[in-house]
């Protein structure tokens, strides 16, 4: 079966010749029409549309957006804040960068509709420190939108007022975690908060009810309100509605971003047909399907089980539909949509050492199992690569990885241990070859990864 056509909803205009990021171009293409319609509707109707759509958050966790909005404490009398999570920091993920650079008004329109629906008067876009250019583009776009009365006091003469501010991070991965992000926005170290009691929907920014949504999710809101929640559910598959942007990187012929109806394309179609297959003379060896913390898949392994609907499946990696549920059923996750591909030139110990170096660098240091464990895993894989491993290191590595998840305040504990656990489970043989023949194991022509 050949791959389906791309269904570009969010990336409709990205890379379109002649499409620019200024407001005149956006307005020529029907921009802000959905906001105009929304302002005349009841906020609770807009929330109902988003709930009906079933859209799941595109930041990584896949939590339903409508449910998240439903949890907001609306009776406290305190202001409600919206924070746009634009801290795109999961390795392998780069979709939000292009939305902000090439179509910033789509995001601003999505933000304003969401703010109006939730009675938010102040929104912050928390953007990665590494995107200085993106921050400038957004600031210009907000100023343009303010001039046209789409943002600011008395939006479109409706009596509703809302401001959006851009806030730059400064290079810390943990700011992508919603409570870490909130702490950072309050001007502190980005230490995640303990939930409960600090559910952002009740006690978020400045101890006020707060919604934290990913850039792509807020763009979906615009399209949901435009077409109606019911029509949106017709796109994609049940429980995995809408479209999904896949960011493919690593060893494929055509890396890049591709948008499809969720669940309508398989991993094999995406990698072989859309991305042109492996590099010349190479074979696929492994793939991480949802950002570097998702569990790795090994080409050649098979997955058997029953779907939610009771149908039996027997899949190879290539057969897996790219949606939240299917990837969850085979023990990994759709996460942020960052697909990292590795071919047979890769030494898996080096690849894991690279990932472990990342997580050891990025642990915020608040919880001991994560702070010490991530560094310990990095040290072990690093000495394996450098020929200094000890016989017991394979077992020690597994033991350390097994003791982190579930013992930390935020999900970073899981994020840093899943790669090690899955690499050991799937490629254990490569790890048992240490300490005998370290760097010499790197196949001919392979790239240095650590």
């Amino acid at each position, binding site marked *: 079966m050949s791959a389906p056509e791309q269904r570009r909803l969010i990336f409709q205009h990205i890379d379109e010749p002649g499409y620019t990021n200024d407001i005149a171009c956006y307005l020529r293409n029907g921009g802000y029409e959905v906001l105009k319609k929304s302002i005349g509707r009841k906020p609770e109707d807009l929330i109902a549309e988003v709930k009906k759509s079933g859209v799941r958050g595109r930041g990584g966790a896949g939590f339903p957006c409508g449910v998240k909005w439903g949890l907001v404490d609306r009776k406290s009398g305190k202001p409600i804040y919206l924070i746009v999570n634009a801290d*795109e920091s999961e390795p392998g993920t780069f979709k939000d960068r292009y939305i902000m650079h090439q179509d910033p008004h789509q995001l601003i329109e999505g933000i304003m509709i969401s703010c109006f629906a939730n009675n938010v008067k102040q929104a912050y876009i928390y953007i990665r420190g*590494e995107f200085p250019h993106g921050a400038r583009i957004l600031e210009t776009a907000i100023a343009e939108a303010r001039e046209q009365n789409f943002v600011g006091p008395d939006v479109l003469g409706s009596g509703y007022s809302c401001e959006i501010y851009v806030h730059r*991070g400064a290079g810390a991965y943990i700011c992508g975690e919603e409570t870490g992000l909130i702490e*950072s926005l309050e001007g502190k170290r980005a230490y995640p908060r303990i939930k409960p009691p600090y559910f952002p929907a009740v006690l978020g920014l400045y101890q006020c009810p707060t919604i934290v949504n990913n850039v792509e999710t807020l763009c979906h809101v615009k399209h949901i309100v435009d077409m109606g929640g019911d029509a949106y559910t017709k796109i994609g598959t049940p429980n995995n509605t809408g479209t999904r942007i896949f960011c493919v990187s690593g060893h494929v012929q055509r890396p890049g971003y591709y948008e499809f109806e969720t669940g309508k394309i398989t991993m094999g179609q995406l990698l072989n047909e859309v991305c042109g297959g492996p590099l010349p003379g190479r074979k696929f060896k492994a793939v991480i399907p949802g950002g570097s913390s998702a569990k790795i898949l090994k080409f050649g392994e098979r997955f058997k089980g029953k779907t939610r609907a009771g149908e039996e499946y027997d899949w190879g990696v290539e057969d897996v539909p790219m949606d939240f549920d299917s990837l969850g059923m085979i023990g990994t996750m759709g996460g942020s949509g960052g697909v990292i591909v590795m071919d047979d030139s890769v030494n898996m110990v080096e690849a894991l050492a690279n990932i472990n170096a990342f997580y050891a660098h*990025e642990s915020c240091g608040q919880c001991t199992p994560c702070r010490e464990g991530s560094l310990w895993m990095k040290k072990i894989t690093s000495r394996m690569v450098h020929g200094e491993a000890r016989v017991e290191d394979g077992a020690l590595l597994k033991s350390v990885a097994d003791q982190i998840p579930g013992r930390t305040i935020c999900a970073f504990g899981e994020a840093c241990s899943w790669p090690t656990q899955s690499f050991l489970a799937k490629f254990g043989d490569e790890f048992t070859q240490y300490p005998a023949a370290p760097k010499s194991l790197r196949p001919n022509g392979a790239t240095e990864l650590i």
Partner: protein
Amino acid sequence: MNLKPDTLKRIDEVIPHYPSKRSATLPLLHLIQEDAGYISPEAIEWIAAKLELEPINVYELVTFYPMFRQQPIGRRHIKVCRTLSCALMGGYKTCATFEKEFNTRAGPGEISPDGEVTVEFVECLASCGTAPVVMIDDELHEKVDAAKAKQLSDQIKAEAGQKKGASRP
């Protein structure tokens, strides 16, 4: 503190964006680093006074967030992404090329002997589809293999040469 008038103006503009002054700490650190090149102890005291905080409240951010530095760097800042997607596509060779071209080592505290560049290996720059990627000052460069790294190095050297030439009496 000897800050440019534009920096001072932008500092006064950004503080009212937040209901709590403390929230403006990161923006102020960015603005001052852009102006002065790094965060000095004097800058920490200055921000603390401006935002009615204790200096430790500012200092703890400087040591937590990797983008802030407490020492000056070279005139140009070359940041090479070392995370998996870039490494798979040759990021380590890219970094080694910059190190060789400028006779320096990659590291946050390192400056090339001519004072021209600081080369740093950094974590994910979120442009994995066009790996390997490099940021030079505020500008992102995509698909920077060893050959392109050499070209960029030549360009930086030429620009440095022009500046020196222009300042000659």
